[in-house]
């Protein structure tokens, strides 16, 4: 794959970021990687545990196991049994959450700094000796089914997104939703979970990020004490990317009760580590960041074809997708909106951005980057994100210099390459009459109560 030229030549660490990230690193004999960053502004700490596993590592038949398993991690281990994890954490001034994506599974806690040892005890307990029993698995399976109904089956963007995934990818595991197919969630067994735990939740497949009001030296000693005896696991099988080359546009329709039509589109993109990825970051900002961005101005303000427009370009381990979602008005013609969108993208490919737009995108990327680092949680998460998707957290420090060097020639070349029609997939929502006509007309609910 041709790469954007010579960016590596300009890679240098940003001075502000460099001074912020005075990170202590260590790797335990069992392979657990540890990153520690002190910040004594407030008496709180964030701890992130990144496991290098997600729906990307799954196979048909047990899709959704990464996410179901994430739930199981809160259901009791040897020392701290069922319900204990959050009870102990909360009563020590902390809170937890977790998320699963295609490429990783991430657990995190925010807590008062005097709870550090307790949190390490809790986290290492479940990495060492998670207890999976059938009863807990069954009840958690029901919860996840309910979650699927709420987030996918009864949520319009959820339905469209799921349809889109199967259009974009034919062979790669990115084609199924992170939450998994309904029948697969039903099918996952305790043995599947146990094998999954042994393979992917071993210390050599994890990185710990601890950021906040800590003494790095003492903290590392505590980490060694609590995690040191967890045995190393096997090296997980590499994931094969067998995705064939797409040969033309792919389209699908979704008929569902709704007030207005909508369109969700995607173009096959590069992998996170590809330098084209950063050029696409610039393009994404120029297209939809702010009221004056190209697509917002054109589709929402000038032609008023759309109520809102969003671009979701997320880095992934394997080649990902640039996704565009257009929320329309009741009388909007989806085809017309598509044409207007394609015309704008073609203009970027033919003419590039104006120099001012290019600079504006760079300024905004930098400002957002800095804002992300305003909290302990933001810093810890950013390090994990860069390490998982770029290879090293240090690559995050050089990002501003790489963005700064991107030229309009690169923008044109990358737009022309990735926004080609033969890379495109399109899902159109056709509003169906309201009322329960079939099983698809289940109720809708959002995840408002969710944290």
């Amino acid at each position, binding site marked *: 794959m041709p790469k954007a030229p010579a960016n590596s030549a300009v890679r240098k660490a940003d001075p502000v970021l460099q001074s912020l990230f005075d990170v202590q690193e260590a790797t335990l004999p069992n392979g657990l990687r540890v990153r520690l960053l002190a910040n004594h502004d407030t008496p709180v700490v964030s701890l992130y545990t990144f496991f290098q596993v997600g729906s990307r590592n799954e196979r048909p038949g047990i899709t959704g196991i990464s996410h179901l398993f994430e739930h199981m991690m809160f259901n009791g281990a040897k020392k701290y049994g069922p319900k204990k994890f959050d009870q102990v954490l909360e009563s020590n001034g902390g809170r937890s959450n977790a998320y*699963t994506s295609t490429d990783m599974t991430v657990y995190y806690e925010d807590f008062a700094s005097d709870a550090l040892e307790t949190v390490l005890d809790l986290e290492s307990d479940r990495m060492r000796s998670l207890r999976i029993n059938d009863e807990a698995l069954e009840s958690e399976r029901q919860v996840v089914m309910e979650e699927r109904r709420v987030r996918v089956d009864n949520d319009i963007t959820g339905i469209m997104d799921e349809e889109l995934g199967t259009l974009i990818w034919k062979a790669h595991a990115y084609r199924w939703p992170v939450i998994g197919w309904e029948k697969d969630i039903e099918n996952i067994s305790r043995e599947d979970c146990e094998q999954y735990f042994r393979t992917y939740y071993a210390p050599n497949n994890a990185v710990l990020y601890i950021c906040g009001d800590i003494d790095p030296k003492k903290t590392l000693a505590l980490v060694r004490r609590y995690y040191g005896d967890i045995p190393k696991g096997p090296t997980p099988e590499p994931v094969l990317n067998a995705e064939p080359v797409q040969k033309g546009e792919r389209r699908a329709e979704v008929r569902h009760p709704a007030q207005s039509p909508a369109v969700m589109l995607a173009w096959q993109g590069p992998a996170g580590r590809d330098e084209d990825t950063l050029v696409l970051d610039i393009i994404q900002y120029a297209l939809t960041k702010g009221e004056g961005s190209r697509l917002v101005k054109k589709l929402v303000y000038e032609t008023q074809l759309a109520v809102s427009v969003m671009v979701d370009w997320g880095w992934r381990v394997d080649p990902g997708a640039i996704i565009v979602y257009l929320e329309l008005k009741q009388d909007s013609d989806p085809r017309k909106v598509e044409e207007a969108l394609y015309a704008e993208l073609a203009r970027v490919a033919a003419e590039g951005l104006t120099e001012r737009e290019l600079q504006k995108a760079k300024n905004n990327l930098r400002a957002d980057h800095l804002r992300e680092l305003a909290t302990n949680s933001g810093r810890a998460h950013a390090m994990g994100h860069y390490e998982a998707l770029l290879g090293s957290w240090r690559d995050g420090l050089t990002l501003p210099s790489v963005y700064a060097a991107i030229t309009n020639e690169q923008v044109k070349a990358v737009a022309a390459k990735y926004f080609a029609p033969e890379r495109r997939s399109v899902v159109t929502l056709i509003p169906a009459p309201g009322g329960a006509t079939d099983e698809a007309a289940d109720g809708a609910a959002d995840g408002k109560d969710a944290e």
Partner: protein
Amino acid sequence: MATRATKKTVKKAAAKAVKAVKKVVSKAEPTPAAVTLPALHESTTSSGLKVLAAQRGVLPLVAVRLVIRAGSSVEPADKHGLSDFTARLMRRGTARMSADEIDETIEFVGASFSVGSSEDVLSLFVATPAEHFPEMLSVLGQIVREPSFPERELELARERALAGFVNDLDDPSVVADRAFTRALWGDHPYGHDVGGSAAHVRTFTRDDLVRFHRERMGPKVSLLSVVGAVSPEVVAREAEKAFAGWEGGPETPMELPPADMKTSGRIILVDKPEQTQTQVRIGGPGFRVGHPDYFPAAAMNNVLGGGFTSRLVNEIRVERGLTYGIHSYFDMMNAGGVFGISTFTQTDKTREMIDVTLAEVAKVREKGITPAELKKAQRYLAGLYPLRTETNESVASVLSDIRVHGLGDDWVEKFRERLMEVKPKQTVEVAAKYLFAQPPLIVLVGKASEVKKQLTGLGPVTVVPASDYE
């Protein structure tokens, strides 16, 4: 939009007997480390605008928050949504700049402006790289002092708002919140959605906006907070430049009538026939911001329906699997507040959900919480409190709240001390007072034909179509 990641929202533990929580780490009673705000510098512009500056942080960023006591509660009775709508239109043109020029000026440097109203205040937020602070404050000043409200921009905003109201009907949770607010507060100025309604937004004219801006917004009822990598001297100087000559608005904030909620066991059932789940809202009177009951009530509520291990979560979600999320809360505003519960469940479980929820609430109302539960809540809330002062934006918000609601400048510093002083007896008192001593209002959004027959004996039921809430 939907992302391809799903977050853990439910953590259902095995339905095994719960043993008492063992104390894992034996420690002396915690003395929380100090949480303090950065030094505050106060000044007043020649036009009478109060300015608070707090210098902090290693990142070259600044957060600005301007609050104006012109929230949705001071709108004319037939112009619901005017405050929020006006706030949005202010950045769509000034005497000197077009909407495009404003956008370009702000967005080019990587700054961001956002606006929005609550019941009590209209707020404008600016987040900017520190080196562009003077220029951004100048733009904020223009937007606030001399918005031009172009007719074309007004029509565009109206169309988008109306399209938004239509699409909102697809979201049962939004419909439930709207119905709840209207029914709970009735004719009180808090009794309508901050965003208004389609019927009212249709009638907005440019004159309405001009009048709201002139009569309701002014320096005497506003506060500017600036937090981040900028010196107090620069803040005072630039604030004077940006806001000199700002006139208009009232001398003092408008007084609102006291809350007079008529809950008395009414049930509003909003019909959305395609639903297989019911959105549930239950509520009654709470208290205003800064009320002395705040600390005992916060601790008590944390035990009842606050965190992941609350009684409601345990009984409703973990033990019975009736829902996927439930929480209780105190919503506090300047003239009063709400104690409420928000959840959802499968259609055929609606009655069971209501019964179990009300039973759990009744247990706490009658017996209070245990001293051990109180201690846990105190440690949880105190431990996480410092997160509220972690960013420039959150410090600016806390500063605004302290001044707007008269919480006292030692609010942050004393917060954890006051929380730790709460005695079990106080939590019993607030539970008896706020946990539905009078039957609450219940709002349900779902398939009425299936839900209504489950409600026998619960209270008077009114069925309304979802389209009432456009």
